[in-house]
């Protein structure tokens, strides 16, 4: 997969966030997007995933030479962001099965998946309302792993995670890149920045 941004302009009212932004993101690489608060890191992720339309310029996704339709790209995208919440009244397993089910994915090895993100078999049965912020972040990441998407949009993925959690996240990102996934990271964490293949500083 390849995502190409050409001459992208985006403004919110009088505030121009991007003007003439050109970038290419390729499968098998991690790109870290860094910058101060309000610089547009999360917005750039939304643009790359076509969750947001630019005011000018173009954003296209390709599989080889074939341009992907909006719906196709959406089906091949997974995301994790502070603004994305899970259902408090459902258990962790119900949340995971629900979001995986929306992508026609059946999770067979639930215990294995939860263990990969550092959650226990006991955590699987808990309602999400009982989860700590860090545990919710791990569960959101488990959903990203479960759906098997080709494009990962990770906004502050290490936020609220302990040292072991951040290390797990970086290991899984490296593994995904090895499987030719395209990973975009919006981050201000030096360890995530250091782990990326490419860097965009806003």
């Amino acid at each position, binding site marked *: 997969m390849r995502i190409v941004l050409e001459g992208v302009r985006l403004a919110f009212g009088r505030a121009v966030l991007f003007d003439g932004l050109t970038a290419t993101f390729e499968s098998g690489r991690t790109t870290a997007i860094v910058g101060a608060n309000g610089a547009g890191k999360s917005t750039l992720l939304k643009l790359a995933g076509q969750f947001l339309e630019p005011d000018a310029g173009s954003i296209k996704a390709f599989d080889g030479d074939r341009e992907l339709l909006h719906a196709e790209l959406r089906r091949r995208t997974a995301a994790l*962001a502070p603004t994305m919440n*899970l*259902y408090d*009244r459902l258990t962790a397993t*119900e949340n995971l099965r629900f979001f995986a089910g*929306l*992508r026609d994915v059946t999770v067979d090895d639930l215990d294995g998946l939860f263990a990969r993100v550092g959650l226990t078999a006991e955590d699987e049965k808990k309602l999400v309302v009982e989860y700590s912020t860090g545990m919710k972040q791990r569960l959101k990441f488990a959903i990203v792993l479960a759906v098997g998407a080709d494009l990962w949009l990770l906004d502050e993925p290490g936020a609220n995670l302990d040292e072991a959690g951040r290390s797990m996240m970086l290991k899984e990102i490296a593994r995904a890149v090895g499987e030719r996934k395209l990973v975009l990271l919006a981050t201000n964490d030096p360890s995530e920045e250091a782990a990326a293949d490419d860097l965009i500083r806003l």
Partner: protein
Amino acid sequence: MNGIKILTVLRKELTAGLRHRAASASMLMFALTALACMSLALGGSPLEPNVLAALLWIVIFFASTVGLDRIFEDEAASGTLTTLKVYADAQSILFGKMIYALISLSALSTFLLPTFIVLFDCPVAEPPVMLLTIVFGLIGLSGAGTLVAALSTAASVKSGLFSILLFPIVLPIFLPAINLTSAAMAGGEISLTMLIPMLLFDAILLVASSILFDYIWN
């Protein structure tokens, strides 16, 4: 559109809805209060079937606005709408939530209808016509309600918007529904073919919702 994904959405709605019954409790409480007020105010005075039919549909309409406006608003308030937009396709969400709305309204009507008949000593000369009218009316109300709930959630000023938008959309369902309910109560010259306009409008509403929802969702 994918039937399994629609069922996935419906199962989630039912599980979450059964664990947190605020929306269904609100609908039920509104219906109970409205029925009790009308019954006490009338004090057993007999009413014409057309008045009874209009009262029944007024209670159904306003009770549904109490619950249906939360279909997307709860998701937006809890931050799950953003997650849904990443993983779900528009049609699965629309029809999953629409079927859930229909189940909620059917459950409400299962309580409402017998209570209404008993409290107002309401005659039912043609029960099959009455039931089918209610079913077709609820299908239209669920379809329009789900679409309008999505529209009003996207608006910056929401207060009252749901009822204001919903009423003109469901009016073509409500007018024949009231007439048919009245006829089913009174009996006489009545045939099931009179339900066809309602059925057609339900079909138009579902197709239009399906087309419009893609624009709202994406």
